[in-house]
């Protein structure tokens, strides 16, 4: 196994533990908003999409990347806005 793969695995495992710990006790009321908010965070694929879309001239890779940018962005913007709409209602 190569060095970057190991480094990535270390980061992955530690971040997973953080994820488990951070979301330990959540009242049922917040499960749907939490799922929706976490879903928006998974739109982080946008960063990867930008990196492959921005590699230069129009090619299959950059076109796939651009499609991925659009899809991930819908996920990000839609996800955060929808979560906010749900949470707004608890304020009243």
């Amino acid at each position, binding site marked *: 196994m*190569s060095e*970057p793969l190991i480094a*990535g695995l270390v980061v992955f*495992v530690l971040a*997973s533990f953080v*994820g488990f710990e*951070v*979301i330990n*006790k959540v*009242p*049922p009321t*917040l*499960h749907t*908003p*939490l*799922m*929706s*908010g*976490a*879903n928006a*965070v*998974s*739109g*982080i*694929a*946008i*960063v*990867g*999409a*930008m*990196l*492959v*879309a*921005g*590699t*230069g001239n129009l090619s*299959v*890779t*950059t076109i*796939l*990347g*651009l*499609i*991925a*940018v*659009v899809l991930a*962005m819908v*996920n*990000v*913007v*839609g*996800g*955060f*806005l*929808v*979560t*906010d*709409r*749900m949470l707004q*209602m608890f304020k009243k």
Partner: protein
Amino acid sequence: MAGFEMGFDLNWAALVPPIEKLTYLVAASLFIVGLKFLGSPATARKGNAIASVGMALAIAVTLLDFHVVSYGQILVAIAVGSAIGAIAAKQVGMTEMPQMVGLLNGLGGAASALVAVAEFWRLSTNGSGDVPTNIVVTAILGVLIGGVTLTGSLMAFAKLQGLVPGAPITFPLQQPVNVTLLLGFLVGGGYLLLHPSDLQIFLDISAISLILGVLFVLPIGGADTPVVISLLNSFSGLAASAAGFVLGNDMLIIAGALVGASGLILTEIMCKAMNRSLANVLFGAFGGGGGATANAAAASGAAVQKTYRSIDAEEGAMMLGYARSVVIVPGYGMAVAQAQHAVRELADRLAENGVEVKYAIHPVAGRMPGHMNVLLAEANVPYSQLYDMDDINPEFERADVALIIGANDVVNPDARDNANSPIYGMPILEVDRAKHAIVIKRSMSPGFAGIDNELFYKGNTMMLFGSAKEVVSSLVASVKELAAV
């Protein structure tokens, strides 16, 4: 002078990677704080905002990356995606939230899978030799998880939206087909490890993963679909992580792992609320009477003609108006009929008459944990009137009337009493312990899970047939008349 300028250029170029990495670190921290805040009612909205700031930072700093040279197209793509996302988020109704989350989730999975495909495509066609093994492995994983997330989420969306029947769909030779596809995927993946530049094989196994996603969700019953969406939410995180491994990008790995872990926890919580194991949800083909016990139960139910009592709105209003305490049990049927505002009005009228009104919220009321709370909050129901299952169950004995509006499986006493019932062991709201139960329902047809409900045939249960909104509205009118007398 020239030397100074060159030095300045070099410094700037050398500065960008650390700035980018540090900003990613800040963004990752904001995600962690945001998710933590999302877990508590007082801070949840702030948490969502914090996470979105983290996302904005991550996107902005990625534009600085020296690999990114074609800003124009990317900015257009970002604008298009943002506009679609914003419009969709504004238009969607609160009742459709679960399928909206499912749909968005599918898009995220698709993006991660596309990243893996795009990068593999670039490396396998740029003529610089074979694709490195670690990239082959992670790209295969990314395309598998991302592909399953995409088509699985679309399938779950279609089930919740009613485009596809909610009942589990099975066909002959389903298991052999699944196994064959999975084997095909593994063989293709193994072949790629030996011949890392074979683009065609890579595309073939990508297609297989898309089919696997459909077949994975097809046999899962409608009532379990939220659990699947939650699991697929976890998958979409893992897919992003896999894309991060392909690109060697820590930001993706961290955020993906956070979502992967949180989605898994939430899935477990939801399974626990239904007293089922995840394996049972995924492979049980539950709810369609598929199992031998369910068939037997259905057969015996058909043999004995069971009787029930039905009342009209006026009689119902009298029972409610003269009760001392009423517990309202809202279900998804209420939400679909958009009756939550009428229900709140009914509760207000009853309270004016001196009736004590409480709402009993089953952990999986609605289509997802917490979904019902959102719907009631939308109708301005005071938070203090909402009671969790564990808090309200001891209260039913003292309640004069339990008013069940569009809920079915979560109040089925068979889950407690009948070991042969497919939902045996699922915690329920014990409405049958109240002095009377009034069930508002369209007809005697079974609920989402397709199981008959023993509650309807009990002596102290009255059926009030009709659409939730109309029935509750006429209850409100009748209760008003009572007060006027």
